[in-house]
Structures are given as C-alpha cells and as structure tokens.
C-alpha cells in the first residue's frame, strides 16, 4: 500500500472526499516522514506540529459538515521561511530575525489558510533568499535528498527537498532569479514561477521587489497548478498585483502539444551547460517534436548580459529592502552608546557574508556618479531582455531550455566562488527580468543518478499554455524516480 505521504495532491483530495483518509491521517503521514527525513535533510526551520494537527482536525470537521474550500483543503503544505505567518516564527534564515514572530499573515498564507491547507512548517532557505544552495542559511545547510553530501539548490532548497521526500505534499517558495526552479531541478520536483503580479507579495520578506514572486513546488504538474490556483489573485495590499482576469491553469493539461510552436533557446544550450543536461534537453525537444510540436531554435541575444544585469538590479533593490532591519523596532539588536552605532553593529552582526556582499554591491550601484554606469545600464539590459522575449514569442508559443547548468553540486563546492554560484541561475534569470512565467519539470537523471530539470517559459499571463506544455513534458519524460530518502523507515 502506498504511504500516504507519497500521494499526489489530486489523489489525496479524492481520498479525503471519499472518506478513505482524513486530514489528520495525511498530517500524521507527513509528520512521520518529517521524523525520518529531517535528521538527514534539514529542510525545515520550524515544524508547527500543534498548528498542523489543530488545522487538520478543523478541516476534518469541515469535511464532515460538507464544507469544501477546494483542492487544497486538508493537504499538508510547507512554506518557505520568508513568508510571514501570524504567530509562527519567520526568520528568512537570518540571525537578524531569529525568534521574530510576525503579527500578520502574508496574503498568500492567508489564502492558503482560507483554502483549508494544513501548514506543516517553515522551510530553510539561503538568508533572505540570496543564494543557490541554502548554504547561506544562518541555521545550517539543507541537504539534497538524492545525495546528502550535495546541496538541494536554493534559495528555496528546504521547500524543494521537503516535497521531494514527502514531508509535505506541496510547498511554496519565492523565485527572484530562479530560487524555485533551480532547487526544483536539483531535487527532482516540479517548481514554478508565476507571472510577476499573479501572486501577492504582501507578507513575503522582500529580496528584490521587482523580481520576487511566490510560486509552488509539487511532485506533479497538475498539483503545481492546483497550488498556484490556491494563492493567485488580486490583492489590494500589493500595488503590483495583477488586476485583470486570471488565467485558468488546469483546463489545458490534457491537450498535448500538437501544433504548438516551441522555441529552444540557443544561448542556453552552450558549452557552459553540462553536456548530460544539454542531451536530456535535446532529447525532450525531440520527444515534443514527435508529439506534434513544431520545435525551432530561437535566440535571446541579450541573455548573455542578463546575469550581470540581474546582479546589479537585485542587489540594488535589496540594499533598500533590507534597510528596515536596523534593530530599532524588531529582530535582534546589538546594544551600543548611540543609535547610529547600534544600527551599524546590529547589521554587521545580523547579516551573513553573502547578504552583506549584496547590500554593499547594491549600495555602490546606486551611488551618485555610479548609478548610470551600473543600475541605469542594468535597467536598459532588462528592457532588451524583455524585447528579446517579445520577439521570440512572435514565432513561438513557449520557449524551452535546461533549468540549470549543472545537477546538484557538492556542499562547499562553490561557497568560495560567488561568481560560480551566481552562474547556477543563468537559465532562470531571464524570465524574472521579463516578469514572465516559467516552470521546471524533472525529465531524467544524470549518470550520478541526480535529477535533471527541464525549463519551459511562456509570455506573461501564459500560465495556461505553460502548464499545458509542462503536463506533456511530464508524460513524455515518464520520470518516476524518487530519492532514497523518501521512505518512512530508517534506511539512511
């Protein structure tokens, strides 16, 4: 019999409604999985056992009363620890916010509570979502469930790992330059970044406001679509929240790719991308072609500058976003004789080296005399990237590429070389700069047995098309491998 922790959200929903299982059963299965995997994985910073059990009981009562808030009711879900949860510590993996308990729920969190989701806990990340491995967490590195000596990717590595091993059935992360898709690829799960503005950022601890977007992790494309539906929607608390009609996400999952125009991005199939990953990407492109898609090569000429532009824009925004962490009103404080000194010492002690590096970089890029050469130039590149996408979408419905240049790398392999670490996001950053939706779907494993992610990109608000193609990729890939950690018994 299948362990309940391994059910898809769709199947779990069916069994909840048939009465075969209860929300408490699902939570207990997740809790058991947490107990077995966490000592090896460290995906969570906080597990909210009491809260989850209480919610599960309330949900079961609702089911008995015939109340049904939709597909996420009773589903155990994990949240990246940069999403504010009322009454539950939210640290963004920073010493600065160690022990801070938000007095409010972010909008996405509130939507999940209203949908009856059982929130199991808060997952590890690179401090303030800055990093690609979780090695920048102030509270320890999470492990890759396929090989515990390797990183799970980042910054949402905890959420990716949790979904991969079944300690949650779905999870949410935030994606600023690839922080959902890259760890999803490295952990062999589906990870999706929605169109900018589709999910409210209210209550998401900001890294780079013009790029940040909350999105789902799941073990199937359909589950990911259901998770996104649970949080998307206009929010009066977010001035950048989309105001128009929201795309439907699950309607086209069975439609296939026949007649669709698929562009494979030339610049993301270069030598710097691991050859096994390129081969897997090419193989999937061929399968899509066989399935009736018209696969063509397209060019995004500005993408070679996208990474550099991103590493000016994101640090510039973060240098202001993180200024509020000054020890005055909340979080940790290092006492000193004057307020200025207190703020300086608090920030020096509270931020880790990567966050400090980015704040300094961003401050510099915005300084008088440097603004035009750095921040101004980066914004112009961003415009060019957008134009490149627009041109590409004139002749294609979706674009495809690898999600990452490598599969999961060893812990410590890139910590001394920030540029090499930054390169982990080379394939994912363009979609953030453009504000477009993008998804990573696992399509196979490399010779080391590590999962390979396949990225699909669509124009803004093209979620329906994106999930449609992703569902076909999922069917064609027949990816069924699970990490060895994904079992509820002591094997590791």
């Amino acid at each position, binding site marked *: 019999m299948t362990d309940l922790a391994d059910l898809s959200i769709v199947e779990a929903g069916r069994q909840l409604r048939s009465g075969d299982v209860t929300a408490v059963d699902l939570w207990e299965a997740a809790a058991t999985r947490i107990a077995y995997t966490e000592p090896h994985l460290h995906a969570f910073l906080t597990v909210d056992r009491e809260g989850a059990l209480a919610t599960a009981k309330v949900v079961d009562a609702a089911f008995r009363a015939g109340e049904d808030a939709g597909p996420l009711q009773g589903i155990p879900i994990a949240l990246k620890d940069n999403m504010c949860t009322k009454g539950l510590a*939210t640290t963004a993996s920073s010493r600065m916010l160690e022990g801070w308990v*938000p*007095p*409010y729920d972010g909008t996405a969190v509130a939507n999940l509570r209203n949908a009856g989701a059982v929130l199991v806990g808060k997952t590890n990340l690179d401090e303030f979502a800055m990093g690609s491995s979780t090695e920048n967490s102030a509270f320890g590195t999470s492990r890759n469930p396929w090989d515990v000596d390797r990183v799970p990717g980042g910054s949402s590595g905890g959420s990716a790992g949790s979904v991969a091993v079944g300690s949650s059935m779905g999870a949410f992360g935030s994606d600023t330059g690839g922080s959902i898709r890259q760890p999803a690829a490295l952990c062999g799960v589906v990870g999706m970044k929605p169109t900018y503005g589709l999910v409210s950022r209210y209550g998401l601890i900001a890294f780079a406001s013009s790029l940040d977007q909350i999105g789902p992790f799941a073990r199937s494309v359909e589950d990911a679509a259901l998770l996104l539906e649970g949080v998307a929607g206009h929010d009066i608390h977010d*001035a950048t929240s989309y105001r128009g009609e929201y795309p439907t996400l699950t309607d086209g999952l069975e439609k296939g790719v026949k007649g669709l125009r698929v562009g494979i991005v030339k610049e993301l199939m270069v030598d710097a991308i691991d050859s096994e990953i390129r081969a897997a990407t090419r193989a999937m492109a061929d399968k899509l072609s066989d399935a009736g898609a018209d696969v063509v090569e397209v060019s995004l000429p500005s993408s070679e500058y996208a990474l550099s532009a991103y590493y000016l824009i994101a640090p510039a925004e973060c240098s202001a976003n993180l*200024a509020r962490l000054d020890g005055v009103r909340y979080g940790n404080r290092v006492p000193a004789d004057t307020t200025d000194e207190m703020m300086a010492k608090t920030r020096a002690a509270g931020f880790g080296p990567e966050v400090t590096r980015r704040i300094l970089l961003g401050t510099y890029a915005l300084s008088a005399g440097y603004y035009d050469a750095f921040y101004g130039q980066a914004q112009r590149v961003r415009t060019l990237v957008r134009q490149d996408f627009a041109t590409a979408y004139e002749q294609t419905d979706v674009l495809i590429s690898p999600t990452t240049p490598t599969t999961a790398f060893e812990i410590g392999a890139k910590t001394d070389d920030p540029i090499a670490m930054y390169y982990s996001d080379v394939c994912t950053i363009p979609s953030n700069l453009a504000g477009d939706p993008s998804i990573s779907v696992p399509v196979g494993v490399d010779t080391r047995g590590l999962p390979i992610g396949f990225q699909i990109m669509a124009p803004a608000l093209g979620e329906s098309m994106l999930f449609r193609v992703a569902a076909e990729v999922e069917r064609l890939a027949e990816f069924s491998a699970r990490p060895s950690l994904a079992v509820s018994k002591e094997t590791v």
Partner: protein
Amino acid sequence: MPEWEAVIGIETHVELQTNSKMFCGCAVAFGEAPNTNTCPVCLALPGAIPVPNEEAIEGIVKIGTALDSTINKDSLFYRKNYFYPDLPKNYQISQYTFPVCEFGKLEIVVDGEPFVVGITRVHMEEDTGKSRHVGEDGRIHDASHSLLDFNRSGVPLVEIVTEPDIRTAEQARAYGAELQRIVRTLGVSDARLEEGSMRFDANVSVRRGPDAEFGTRTETKNVNSLRSLQRAITFEIDRQTRVLEEGGEIIQETRHWNEDKGVTISMRIKEESEDYRYFQEPDMLPLEIDEAWQQRVKAEQPELPAQKRARYVGLGTDAHTAELLADDPALGGLFDQAVQAGANAKQAGIWITQEVVAYLRREEKSLVETALSAAHVAELSEMVSAGDLSSTASKDVLNAVLAGDGTPREIAEAKDLIQISDSGFLEAEVDAVIADNTDAFEKLAGGDMKMIGFFVGQVMKRTGGKADPRLVSEMVRNKAQG
C-alpha cells in the same frame, strides 16, 4: 558696488488630512496615544509593502492645479535612502524625476505690487514618525534613550518647491500666507504651522546685485509661524551680508531657527554631501493621472483666495477688507449671503470686518454662536440707505443684534434710534432755529460755513438727536445760499 540682494526659495511641506495614510489603511489622526495608528506597512515590518492612497493623489492634484502646474500624466515614485530611527523603512517613498506637478506659479501682492513666484515642483511623499529623546534636557546627545511614535509615519506629505524667485523676507511671508490660504481653501489640510501640518524651509543666499551669480545658500528649518519665516529670513540675510562684508565665507549648511533668541543656529551636521541613492520604487507601478481626472479636479476647484478677493473688490470693498473677508470662511460666507440678500457691499464689509470681529473678539465667541444672520446685515444696510438709521447708531444696533436682542428694526425702534428724515418736518425745524438765531444765520449767509455745524446741532437738540444730520446740514446750506 551694487547693493546686496537676497535670493530666496521656499520648500513647504503640507500634511494632507486624508482618511487614511499614504500607503496603508491606518487613520490620519493627531494627538492620539503613541503607536495606536500603526500597521505592518507604516511600521515597516518585514514583508509589508505600500499601496498608494488615491485620496492623497487627488489632494496633490488639487494643490498643483491651484498653483497653475503641469500635472504629469505618468508620475513616478522613488526611494530616498537614509538611515534614521523615525524613518522605519530607512528609506522614504518620495518623488524625483516626474513628480505629480511641475512648472507652476503663484502670484502674490506685496505693498500693492503683484509678484510671481515660480513653482518648480509639487511632489508626493510620506511623513516620518516622531522621536522623543528622554534625558536631561530632551536633546539627543544627552538622552539616555529615545521613544518613537509612528502614528505620523506614512501620513501623506506634499512638498511644494519654489524657484529662487523671492527677493525679500516680506515676499517670502506673503508667499507663505497665500499658500496657506490656498491649501485651506482647497480643504486638503488645516495647514497649521504651529502644529506642523504645514512646515517651511527657507533657502537663503545673498549676492551683489541682480546680475551677480547666486551666492552659497543655507537652509533654515524649524520656522513655525509666518512671522518667524519673515524674521528668520531677515536674520539670515543680515548674517550672510555681515559675514561676506567682513570677508568671510558662507558655508552651505542647514540652520535651525531659534524663536526665543531670534537667531538661526548652525545644526553642525557633518557637511558631507548626502547621497540619497534615489531609485524608482519597485513596489509600485507608475502613477497614472489621466486627462479626465485632471479635468474633473479643475472643474471642481473652489474659488481661490485671489479670485475671491478680486470679486469682493469688484463688489465695492476696499482691498484690505476684501483680504480680511477672504481669509475667514465664516465672515466671508456671511458677507456673501448678506450681499446676496441686498446689503451694500462696502457697508457690509466694514461692519463685518470691524464691528462683528471686535464683538467676537471681546465676547470670545465664534460667529455661529451669535444671533447675527445675513438677513440682519441686509436689513441694517437697507435702514441706513433709507436714512432710517444713522451710521453711528447702526453700530449700536449691530452689536445688539449680535447679542441676540432682536432684528435691527426691532432694536432701533425699541431704542428709539429711528432717524427723522421727513423733509417737511425737518424744514420746519430748520426754519424755527434760523428764526431764533438771526445773527448767526447772517454770518452763515455771509460765507462763514463753520456756522453750519451750529445749526445742525440746534436741530439735533430740538429733535432729541433723531434728525438725519446729513439731511439737516444740506437744508441749512441751501437756505444760506438762498
């Protein structure tokens, strides 16, 4: 060498009295318990983001329109970065390029001379919280600790920046006063200087005559009244002139106006040039103020103070009376209604700005607390025009009406103040006095016009003071000239 000339520019901050703050739903309220009107947004909790308040945007568009500005259809918010404990985000959301309004102007009048002050820009931003330093004397460097109140944090703030067009402290004061009137007329703020809902910063420099280059300027803060604005600028002009004449140099700095001592004091801030690292606010989209919105604000614009004053002068009041009436909505309203009800504008203006104001001051009352109505003023005016009441008596009657003793006619009759202006009756009285005083009349007829007063006095005596002296005087004169 040419005379020294001052070059002055004024930056004015106006807190808008909107229902909610600039970027969150908290109430804009004053004098409440500290930190009661706060939320994650105005406390800058992690994850909280701003949403602009449409009512505040409407407010700044009103101000910009009244100042003849160009309203930018697409306007941008920026982050102005600096660390200060009362600024919870450690950046202020403000504007930089593409403010809501640019290229405006305001005409003021000083000593009867019109003068145009250019308005560089009017932009939208948010207010900070307030710090209170606890310690020996409440000053920051002696404080043992500081307390912060974020009730004001995020209150909508409009900044109005002039061109360096102003040349005298009197002009500066006139500009400040006119701006305050406009803001109050628009109803967007109570614009109280002493409470800080309107605040001036004065940029002052001096130079050798109108053709010289601008000198180094100082910025004077903490000016809490129009009078202090004028005094502070006068002090700064004198100080700078003295320093330069003694061969010294003006340092570009921020100075603090000390009201008690009547001096500006250097705030001794390290004068490194502050780099605010402005960049476009990524939490917000460009603000769109379309043509329809701009047109509606223009159409709904109330009569501005200058328009009102011009209208009053057109009705017949003198400039000073027009200004007093235009400055006080209650008095101006009474005046408008009285004139509409038929009162003589000149007469009504004088009664209201002199007798009524004196009564209110003496009795420490507001107009609504008195019994006076516009109909009363009109009635009073009609009685004087008809000659039923002397101008002197009218003041007594007006005071009695204010006190609630009745209508003007009731009071005049009760007090027996109705004038005799029956010319047949008065002519008989005049003839009787002449008959009794033939010698005096001969002097008068001989050209000694001083004697008119004597005859008028005699008639007043005979009529118990009720004769219309104007009419009597005319009759006596006619008779003398035979």
